[in-house]
């Protein structure tokens, strides 16, 4: 690996035409895409929320389905960003060679990686807002504080998109992403307080959960949905930002190495 791969990224507005490209593709499939964003999280939330919720008097001071609503928002944002930054970006880099076409113009790899992360975060934002609207319609959150979920799902999107890009930079083929989903994404969904409070876990698993970004997302989301100010908000935000920045830098270094051939 050459030293030039480690240079800090040059950030410019040149990422924007690439973002617009993705937007133009997405617009062509907008309706099925939105339904796709909604179906999985809403079915989980309603099924578990009402089904399991009827057996549980309350959780964390609210009904179980309201408890689940905050977690659902977080994990569905995580999933949208992860899918886009893995499968979507890999297709554009490897299969369609879209990146190669773009790099022949004045746009650089730094701009491309930035735009991919921002685009995946945009998908998180869109799916998060769609789920949030369902939550509001069902009356599962009545607080104005829940509006803060909009920037939060964007931040969750940035963190998971950036980490996902590391996988994309390393992936030889699509199959590789199965490992990431089964070994990283699914465990996070189960360990980070989406379905039950992290404090229910044995101490070792609690310590692990604290290191994972989704825990910090849920710790921010749950109070906001209930109209409370999250404790240690700055710390949780800082952890998510750190994942986003580290993921961006590490993936960029790896992409530079991969594409310098």
């Amino acid at each position, binding site marked *: 690996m050459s030293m030039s791969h480690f240079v800090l990224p040059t950030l410019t507005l040149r990422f924007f035409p690439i973002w617009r490209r993705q937007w133009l593709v997405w617009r062509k499939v907008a309706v099925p895409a939105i339904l796709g964003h909604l179906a999985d999280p809403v079915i989980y939330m309603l099924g578990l929320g009402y089904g399991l919720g009827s057996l549980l008097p309350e959780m964390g001071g609210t009904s179980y389905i309201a408890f689940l609503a905050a977690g659902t928002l977080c994990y569905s944002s995580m999933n949208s960003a992860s899918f886009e930054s893995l499968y979507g970006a890999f297709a554009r880099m490897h299969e369609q060679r879209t990146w190669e076409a773009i790099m*022949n113009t004045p746009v650089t790899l730094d701009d491309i990686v930035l735009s991919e992360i921002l685009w995946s975060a945009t998908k998180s934002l869109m799916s998060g807002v769609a789920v949030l609207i369902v939550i509001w319609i069902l009356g599962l959150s009545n607080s104005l504080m829940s509006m803060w979920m909009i920037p939060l799902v964007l931040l969750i999107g940035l963190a998971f998109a950036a980490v996902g890009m590391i996988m994309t930079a390393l992936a030889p083929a699509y199959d590789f992403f199965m490992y990431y989903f089964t070994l990283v994404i699914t465990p996070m969904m189960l360990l980070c307080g989406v379905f039950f409070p992290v404090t229910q876990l044995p101490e070792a698993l609690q310590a692990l959960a604290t290191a994972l970004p989704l825990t910090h997302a849920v710790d921010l989301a749950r109070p906001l949905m209930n109209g409370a100010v999250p404790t240690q908000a700055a710390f949780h935000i800082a952890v998510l930002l750190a994942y986003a920045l580290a993921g961006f830098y590490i993936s960029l270094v790896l992409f530079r190495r991969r594409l310098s051939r």
Partner: protein
Amino acid sequence: MNPVIQAKGLQKSYAGHRVVDGLDLAIRKGECFGLLGPNGAGKTTTLRMLLGLIAPDAGTATLLDLPVPQAAREARIKVGVVPQMDNLDPDFTVAENLLVYGRYFGMHDSEIEARIPDLLEFASLTSKRDAKVPTLSGGMKRRLTLARALVNDPDVVFLDEPTTGLDPQARHLIWQRLNALTQQGKTLLLTTHFMDEAERLCHRLAVMDNGKLISQGSPRELIESNIEPQVVEVFGETAGQWANAHAATYAQRHEVSGESVFCYVHDAQPLVVHLQAQSALRYLHRPANLEDVFLKLTGREMRE
């Protein structure tokens, strides 16, 4: 005037293997320059270094008077690229491909929209304006890739094997368009392994093998300086035996390839008279061409 593209002592190795080995090039404004070489000769790596997409291990390069890769981004504002493999956007129509690509050069939508009709006309794709890319034929895709490379009105166009995989009709149309571009004063740098393409399009050529330039000049110069002017090809089951016995008598140089013998001569007359008497052999007498030069310089073994 400074050369539009210049390379001095370019070197690049991958995993200890030297892919480009001390390459010097100077391409003048308005010329069509061809880089020839067998697969793996280092042509694509050379193009990528000249575009500033990869950094050389040693040596320097300039593109439109700007050092690359240091100022590659600025240089590429006035460069168009037709890559070896199509990388059009499959989700978009023909016109959308041009619009989206123009934006990468910082052009405004109105500016690009104004150019699209001319670009489509140039590529003979006017009627396909709203067709999706997957519905286009191979030749149409290549022409769209060429139109896309011209969206920013470049001064220099890089073409990496622009006609590989096309049928003769599609190739001829691409050639016509490339000739039109040189007439407009654009500088073209193309790689190819079709010798007829190189001979027809290029003002100057360089033959590359194992990362080095082994010969350079106009198609005519390359033929004159590297090879005897006449070729007699001899075919037949006994051609090999015939070559052992007689070829050296009549030909300055000869090569046996399967059941064919290629005889390179200054004066073909005595050989032709001799062959007319050999009933078991057929022969073809023709002037030497670029393919003969290429095979002489790079050998007949397969490269894979």
